[in-house]
């Protein structure tokens, strides 16, 4: 092997998979450098940079669609980055031969299925594919390695059973055995344990931790279970929108401030002084610990921009009214479905002054008036008058930021009115999550 940074003791045949560090220097196992990657037409990783040291146990977290799976595919050379460089143990991944790559990195995907009825041993055998040339068969060593991997994962007794009849936990251990049979230096798991029950989840984690502590196996675990991750990780990496948002010890990454912003919802973070673990939980009871919310909010929306607000405000116990909306508009449909009081006007037509007046009365009865990120044309410009009259009634008014960008009226009339309203005391919001925090704060 070029590089000679990692040498493997020949004694590993005897069950000792120790990895020696030359000169005691730790090696960068995975080096992602300014990587941009994705699928036809849209980038998922956007100039991402991160490193994993050899022997580290890293847990990668982040909301759905933040690019974790794409990162795994890029790191394993399955997906070619459009910019940047991916190195495994100092070597460019695109230059690695498939067999070499398999000895450096093993990947456990979310789900592995074969349509054919393989036995457990036959499944594990696949782990030795990369180690043998097409014209060679399996050698004695290969069987020794398979056997050892199956002992580590406690599946040797299942060897002759059919893979598909096993339980989820057993299947996951078999897949782990298959990947360990590659004898990789690093292993990446893509949410592979999320669907397991707590017993089997910890069983897999114990195996991983043991391989990590005793044999120096570098582990990168993608997980959605923040609390569990904090227990096991040497280091956590938080991904968001294709870049690393935070990296460090569990208590540094798992803080309510960062998490709430990344996951765009309210989260409670509690530190357990006894075990040192961090407990992250969502908020089920929308009213939170502060007691009942009785305040009402009038939402000015249209074209589907209000749905998210209706839902969230409802969840948090606000009484919601809305209008003016055109009938058959998706917001009107949503309001009807959610049982929200709404002022409606004719479909696909300009808002009448009568309707606007009715909505203004509704807005003056509410405590707060919120403008959704609705685009403006000449037809719904009148909606801004509702905000103006609410301000005059002394109500709290929130305007979704960036009116100018969605202003299609002649001469940017809506933007001008919005600016005037801000001067008159309206406030701006950009994230629904933060808006809700503000609304609940001002309530107390």
């Amino acid at each position, binding site marked *: 092997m070029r590089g000679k940074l990692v040498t493997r003791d020949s004694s590993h045949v005897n069950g000792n998979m120790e990895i020696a560090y030359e000169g005691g220097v730790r090696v960068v196992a995975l080096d992602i450098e300014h990587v941009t990657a994705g699928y036809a037409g849209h980038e998922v990783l956007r100039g991402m940079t991160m490193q994993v040291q050899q022997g580290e146990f890293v847990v990668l977290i982040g909301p759905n669609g933040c690019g974790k799976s794409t990162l795994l595919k890029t790191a394993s050379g399955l997906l070619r980055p459009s910019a940047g460089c991916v190195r495994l143990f100092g070597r460019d991944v695109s230059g690695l031969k498939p067999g070499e790559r398999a000895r450096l990195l093993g990947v456990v995907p979310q789900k*592995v299925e074969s349509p*054919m009825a*393989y036995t457990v041993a036959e499944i594990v055998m696949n782990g030795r*594919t990369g180690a043998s040339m097409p014209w060679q068969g399996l050698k004695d060593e290969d069987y020794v390695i398979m056997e050892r991997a199956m002992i580590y994962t406690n599946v040797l007794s299942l060897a002759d059973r059919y893979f598909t009849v096993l339980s989820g936990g057993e299947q996951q251990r078999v897949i782990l055995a298959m990947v360990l049979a590659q004898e990789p230096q690093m292993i990446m798991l893509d949410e592979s344990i999320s669907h397991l029950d707590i017993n089997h989840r910890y069983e897999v984690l114990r195996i991983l931790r043991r391989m990590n502590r005793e044999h120096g196996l570098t582990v990168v675990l993608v997980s959605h279970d923040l609390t569990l991750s904090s227990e096991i990780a040497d280091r956590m990496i938080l991904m968001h929108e294709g870049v690393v948002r935070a990296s460090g010890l569990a208590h540094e990454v798992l803080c309510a401030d960062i998490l709430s912003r990344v996951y765009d919802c309210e989260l409670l973070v509690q530190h357990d002084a006894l075990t040192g673990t961090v407990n992250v939980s969502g908020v089920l009871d929308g009213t939170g610990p502060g007691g009942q919310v009785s305040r009402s909010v009038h939402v000015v929306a249209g074209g589907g921009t209000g749905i998210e607000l209706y839902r969230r405000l409802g969840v948090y116990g606000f009484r919601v009214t809305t209008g003016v909306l055109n009938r058959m508009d998706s917001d009107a449909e949503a309001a009807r479905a959610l049982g929200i009081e709404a002022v409606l006007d004719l479909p696909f037509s300009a808002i009448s002054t009568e309707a606007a007046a009715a909505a203004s009365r509704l807005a003056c009865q509410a405590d707060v008036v919120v403008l959704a990120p609705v685009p403006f044309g000449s037809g719904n410009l009148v909606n801004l008058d509702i905000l103006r009259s609410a301000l005059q009634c002394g109500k709290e008014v929130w305007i979704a930021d960036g009116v100018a960008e969605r202003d299609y009226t002649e001469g940017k009339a809506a933007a001008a009115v919005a600016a005037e309203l801000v001067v008159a005391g309206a406030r701006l919001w950009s994230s629904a999550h933060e808006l809700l925090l503000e609304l609940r704060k001002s309530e107390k």
Partner: protein
Amino acid sequence: MIRGRRKDVEPTVLLGVTSVAGSRVALFLVLVPLLLAGSLLMGPSGIGLPDLDSPVGAAILNLRFSRMVMGMLVGSALSVSGVVFQAILRNPLAEPYVLGVSGGAGLGAAVAILFGAVAAVPLSLPVSAFISAVLTLVLVYWMASRGSGGAPSVYSLILSGVIVSAICSSVIMFLVSTASAEGLHNVIWWMLGNLQPVALEQRVLAAVLIGLGFMVTWMLAMRFNALTLGREMAHYQGMNADLVIFAGLLAATLMAATAVSIGGMIGFVGLIVPHVTRAMFGPDHRLLVPLSAVAGGVFLVLCDAFARTVFAPVEMPVGVITALVGGPFFLLILQRKMKHAWVA
């Protein structure tokens, strides 16, 4: 890495090598020569060894032997090809003709027969069938890869194959419907498949091509195992999945096209023999590839012996017999053993 110490370590168990399969394989391999010998005893001239002292008897045995060789070649090519297609496409309905090989070869043959090339130029029938089959694969693969940016997905391959096959069939039907009665008879007869021995050089060439395809397939056997877990997982396990898929499709098509060019479009073998072999011996391709080659060959040889004997002196097209006789027999096996082959 660990050479030099090899002698010290021996696996306590050879995982995945089960004794049940072992004894079954041994029994099967003992049976094969007996069945092949049996096929030599059957023919339209009667059941039993012909009189070898007479020149007629020697010629008869010689002819039966040639047909046996043809059957072995075509049968093993088709069934190994089916194994490969079922593994790569991860689909139990896949067979050698799924990517349009039959449609392409049929079209080539129909053109050669109907436009008189067969009568004029020797070897023009197998050559045109072979070339048009390979061209069809190239066309299907190219169509399926467009839009996916690189290697085609399994589904686009299957769909393109089905569409191209349908187009080819329509063109064949058009040509046949406008042809003379004699041309029509020739085309239909060819399409039903038969194992009349072709010229010796042609047989040798076919054996070389099929042998080549078989060697490639057998070498990739372990990689086919990994491929059934999906292209992604196969990639993670240290193989160039796209290359293996491409090489496998090419080898399988080469075998199928060669088989079609000398034996016509014999159906059923390539679909069912892989299934039955898998049901009997398990889905490990290291065993499945060679065993299905033997099984496919023997099956077709027996069907041919049956086809030329039972209705003697009329000879049935072997393609008719394969499904008619083999169908119920294999259904019986599959019913009892399917759980050893595919996941329910």
